[in-house]
Structure formats: structure tokens, C-alpha cells
């Protein structure tokens, strides 16, 4: 213990012998750590937004379909169990939120334009909180019940079709016999969504109205279930799997949108790679500093060895010196990162590049997300690799021949 105190003292004093070099090194480590944590937080924030938006495009982290529906979203690939029976099964199951829907491709036509859209037949009461549209931000009104005879379309779509609230549009789709099913609907509301593509793609109508139009009786194409936490869908998945018939396909959102699902997994790996890359750049500076420090003190180290200090103590002294440097740098880096992230909690407005971000499926406000595990990861990597990097110069210092070292001309 005493040896350690002496070694610690020696290391600390050695550290400040050339304080300019130490300060530069501290700054380098500090900025390095800051970059690791801050960039990680930004990327995590971006991924988070992408996933949140991505999931909101298919609200419901767990969904039930006819197995053929996912490959061919055709009106023939209905869920065989009638809607009312599904309703009975799901009601008592203790699920946070669920809804049954009809989702089919359709064509919407106004006097001047026509567009392909995804037509959603919903029960508005069930959808509250399960939809990407901002219900407080609707021009006109939202659907009132499942038998509502009107449609709600996106603002962007309304502009393209040159239509507005109160006007009629025609929706065309196909019934199970491949006959054209079409009818006029009055637009009662325009919704806004975080992404323009949603405003362009989705058209909402009453579930029962569509069942009548498409002649599918009491059937739906999907059941969606939300559990609240999209990172942990297994419990909901198991509950739903137990609930429905075996010939139906129950899928997690990670299966439905494998791009996003994979992204979530890849991101954790990406953070590690990012941290290591920064560290590699940093380690050259660190090793170089230590090598210099050792090189300057060859005679001194020789003297200490000649006076009877054990080589392991020399090694310890250099390693402690490097550890002190790293700890101080890490402290500075962490504080710096924290200080920069806190004021940005409201989100960074990147609407200048909103269009590009939207292509990636991210929204135009970026909220950095500081996760404890990422911070710990960055610090651990720096500490462990820093320790390994400092071993080489320390080892060399401890292996000096005392006489050679003392007589070495500087």
C-alpha cells in the first residue's frame, strides 16, 4: 500500500512536470470522449425517431394477418375469424391497446387527379393513441365511428388532388370476386402527419362502411396490438400468439419492417465501432506521450532501478501515470458531453435538410438520446484499451539495464 502511495505520488508529479504536454493530451482525450458520447447520443436519437416514425406507420407493435396477406395485401387474404369473434377474444385478454382494421390498396380520384393510396378501414374509438396522425391537428373532423360514411385524407394528398374538406372524392378498390368496388365519399377532415409520405399514402374510412363496400361481411384484414414499449415486444407477442388461431400469422414489428428491426440491432454494434475508431486515433497520441515521457526520463529510471526500485514498480508507475491521464480526460469528456446534450433535450431543428431526412424515414427534429449503457461502453473501451496501450512503453521502461540507462547521454 505504501509502495502504491509512493508510485501514485511519483506518477502524479511526473504528470505535471511537462504540464503543457499533459494539458494538450487531456484536451485530446476530453474531446475524443466527448465526440464518442455526443455522436452516439445523436445517432441513437436519430434511430429512435426513425423507429418511432417507422412503427407509427404500422401502429401496433404486434400484428395478426392472414399468412398470405403480407406478400399480397389483397382483399382475398382476409382473416378467416370474423371480426366480432376477434373482438370477444381480445377484449378480455388484458392487452394495453388493440384494434381490428381493413387495409387494402385503393385508388382515389378527384375531378382532376387520381392517386394510388392505402385505404384503412378503422374503428376510430379503438385507434386513439394508436395512430401516427395528430388528432389535435385535423382540419375539419376525424371519423366519428366505424359506420361513418366519410373519409379523412392527408393534407398533402388533398393538395395533389385539388380537393378540400366538404368535397366528394371517389375511392375504387376490388371486392373478393375481383369486381370493382367503388363509391363516392365526402372528405370531412384533413390530417397532418410527421412525415409527408403518410399524408400522401393513407386514407381513413369507417370499418363498417368499407366492409359493406368491399362485400366482405364481418371480416377484417389485420389485428394490431400495442404493448407500449417497442423495445420489448415479446410479452405481447406471446399473449397474442396464444389468443389467435394457429393458421394466422402473428408478427412483431421487427419482422414486419425488417429494415428498422435490423437497424436497431446494427446500431448497438455501430456505436462500439465508432467508439473504437475514435479511440484508435486517440491511442496514437496517448502512446506517443507516454513514450516521450519515458524517453525523457531514461537516466532517472536507471537511477531508480540502481537504487533498488523493482522493475514492476517502474511499470506500475508509468501505467498509473497513463491511467491518471485517462481518468482526468474521461472526466472532462463526460462533463463536456453532458453539458452539450442537456441544452439540446428539446431537439435540434434540422428542418433545413428535412427532405433528405425524410427519405431515410427520420423526422426533422433530432433529439439526442443519452443512454447510460452507451456512456459506460465509451468509458470502458477507453479505459481498457488505454491500459493496454500504455503497457508497451511501461514495459520497455521497466526493462532498462540500470547502468546503460544512467550513462545514456541525453
Amino acid at each position: 500500500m505504501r509502495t502504491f502511495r509512493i508510485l501514485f505520488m511519483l506518477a502524479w508529479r511526473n504528470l505535471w512536470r511537462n504540464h503543457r504536454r499533459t494539458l494538450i493530451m487531456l484536451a485530446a482525450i476530453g474531446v475524443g470522449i466527448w465526440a464518442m458520447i455526443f455522436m452516439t447520443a445523436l445517432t441513437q436519437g436519430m434511430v429512435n425517431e426513425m423507429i418511432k416514425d417507422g412503427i407509427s406507420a404500422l401502429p401496433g407493435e404486434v400484428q395478426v394477418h392472414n399468412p398470405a396477406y403480407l406478400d399480397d395485401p389483397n382483399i382475398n387474404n382476409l382473416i378467416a375469424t370474423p371480426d366480432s369473434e376477434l373482438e370477444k377474444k381480445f377484449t378480455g385478454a388484458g392487452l394495453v391497446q388493440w384494434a381490428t382494421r381493413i387495409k387494402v390498396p385503393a385508388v382515389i380520384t378527384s375531378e382532376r387527379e387520381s392517386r394510388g393510396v392505402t385505404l384503412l378501414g378503422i374503428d376510430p374509438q379503438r385507434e386513439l393513441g394508436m395512430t401516427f396522425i395528430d388528432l389535435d391537428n385535423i382540419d375539419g373532423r376525424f371519423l366519428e365511428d366505424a359506420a361513418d360514411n366519410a373519409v379523412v385524407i392527408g393534407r398533402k394528398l388533398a393538395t395533389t388532388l385539388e380537393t378540400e374538406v366538404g368535397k366528394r372524392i371517389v375511392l375504387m378498390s376490388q371486392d373478393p370476386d375481383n369486381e370493382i368496388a367503388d363509391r363516392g365519399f365526402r372528405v370531412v377532415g384533413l390530417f397532418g402527419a410527421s412525415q409527408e409520405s403518410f399524408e400522401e399514402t393513407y386514407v381513413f374510412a369507417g370499418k363498417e362502411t368499407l366492409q359493406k363496400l368491399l362485400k366482405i361481411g364481418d371480416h377484417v384484414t389485420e389485428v394490431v396490438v400495442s404493448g407500449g414499449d417497442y423495445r420489448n415486444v415479446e410479452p405481447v407477442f406471446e399473449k397474442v400468439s396464444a389468443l389467435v388461431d394457429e393458421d394466422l400469422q402473428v408478427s412483431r414489428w421487427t419482422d414486419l419492417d425488417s429494415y428498422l428491426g435490423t437497424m436497431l440491432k446494427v446500431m448497438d454494434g455501430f456505436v462500439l465501432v465508432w467508439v473504437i475508431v475514435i479511440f484508435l486515433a486517440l491511442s496514437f497520441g496517448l502512446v506517443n506521450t507516454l513514450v516521450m515521457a519515458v524517453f525523457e526520463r531514461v537516466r532517472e529510471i536507471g537511477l531508480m532501478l540502481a537504487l533498488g526500485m523493482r522493475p514492476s514498480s517502474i511499470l506500475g508507475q508509468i501505467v498509473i501515470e497513463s491511467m491518471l491521464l485517462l481518468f482526468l480526460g474521461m472526466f472532462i469528456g463526460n462533463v463536456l458531453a453532458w453539458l452539450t446534450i442537456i441544452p439540446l433535450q428539446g431537439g435540434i431543428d434540422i428542418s433545413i435538410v428535412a427532405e433528405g431526412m425524410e427519405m431515410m424515414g427520420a423526422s426533422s427534429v433530432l433529439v439526442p438520446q443519452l443512454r447510460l449503457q452507451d456512456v459506460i461502453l465509451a468509458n470502458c473501451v477507453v479505459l481498457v484499451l488505454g491500459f493496454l496501450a500504455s503497457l508497451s512503453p511501461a514495459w520497455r521502461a521497466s526493462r532498462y539495464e540500470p547502468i546503460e540507462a544512467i550513462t545514456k547521454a541525453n
Partner: protein
Amino acid sequence: MRYLAIAASWLLLPALALTAEPDASQIVRDTIDNWRGVSSYSEMTMTIHRPDWERSMTMRGWTKGDDQSLVRVTAPQKDRGNGTLIDGNSMWSFSPKVNRVIKVPSSMMAQSWMGSDFSNKDIAKSDDIIDQYDHTLLSVSEENGFKVYEIESVPHEEAAVVWGKEVLRIREDHVLLEQKFFDQDGELVKQLKTLKIAEMDGRQTAVQQRMGDVDAPDEWTEIQILQVEFDIDIPDSTFTQSNLRNPRER
């Protein structure tokens, strides 16, 4: 005798009222019937005009009842054999190049028919105007010695029609003179105009009609009827997919 005359006049009154104020729906119905007959065979030329090009196709068409029709292109050579079959609400098209009969899906109903200013829907559902609209007579005027009825047709709330209203001008001998399509703000979007009327097979027929968007005056499609026969005997086998693919011409 006097009593009889009075009784007779009472009986005739409703009929008299009918002639004085003709029923708009009936006029529309009669116009469509006059146009198609119970069945018909026609030969026509369709000219598609655009600012930088123009092309014509010659076609033969058969119709029967309200909802069966078959159209087949006979010239130019590269389009020869292209056909469209309409049976009820369904529409099929055939192209000899791919040798396939394709059912026109709902997603394509709003698209143009053979590149013209008519949409597939215009062609397939031309008689929807009878039962999907409410008709009111706007005015009766005199033109070249004929009475001309102006009828406003407003689609039903749930009708699969995008127009706010259509205004038809129909001559008293049931020839359509003009059909105007208005959007829901009451602005004119496109119109079908009859340019020439002639007697064909004993009926007054619009032999030259032009369809065009109001926004683009140099883009229009003209249909010219070269020959028409009404109320002829057409076998049901004419309106089948197999006949669409392998024509059995008379």
C-alpha cells in the same frame, strides 16, 4: 257525350302535363337508348389530337343492352386487334402483341382509354348517368327549329362520380349536343361536344363528337362515326373473353 268528353279530358290531363314539362330523367334515358339502341354495330374513327402530334384509329364496336359492349381496332396496322370488352361493371382489354386478355383493375379505371381523352371509366360506365344522378330540367330553348333541353345532372352522394354536376344539352329528337363536366366548385373541367349530326340507319345520330379538357384547348379526342346499324341481332357469344381474343367476325 259531354260527360264523356270531360271524363276523357281528365284522363288526358296527366299526359298533357307530361308533354308540357317533360321528365328530365326520361329524356336522358331516351337519349342513351337512342344512342345505343337495343343493340348496335358501328364503325368509327377516333382521332387523338395533341399540340405536337395527332393520330387516328379506326374501330368497330358492338353494343347490346345497357352494359355489354365490345370495341376492336382495325387500323392502323400496329394497333390492329387491340380490343376492349365491357360486360356489366367489368372491363377486359386484349392486345395481340402480348396475346393476353387482361381484366382492367380498379386501379386503372381512371386512366385513359387507348391514350385518348376518355378514361376507362368513361367508356365502361357511360350509362351510369341514368341511375346514379338526379336530373332536373334547367331550360328549354329553340335552336335551328329544334327544341333543346338543358338538363342539370347532380350525382348521388354515394355515386362513384367525381363531378360536382354535369350539364347536358339534348335536342328534342334525343341527340346529345353537349355534355359539360363541372367540378365541385362549379367550374367547367371538360366537355363533350357534338360537332355534326346526321341520319344513320334511320336515326338522328351525333356522328362527330369531341371530348376535351377546358384547361388544354389543343388537346382533344374526336370520334367520328362512319357507319352504324341499330337493333340488329348480335349473339351473346360476341361479348365473351374468347371472342375478344379470337375474333369471329361476321
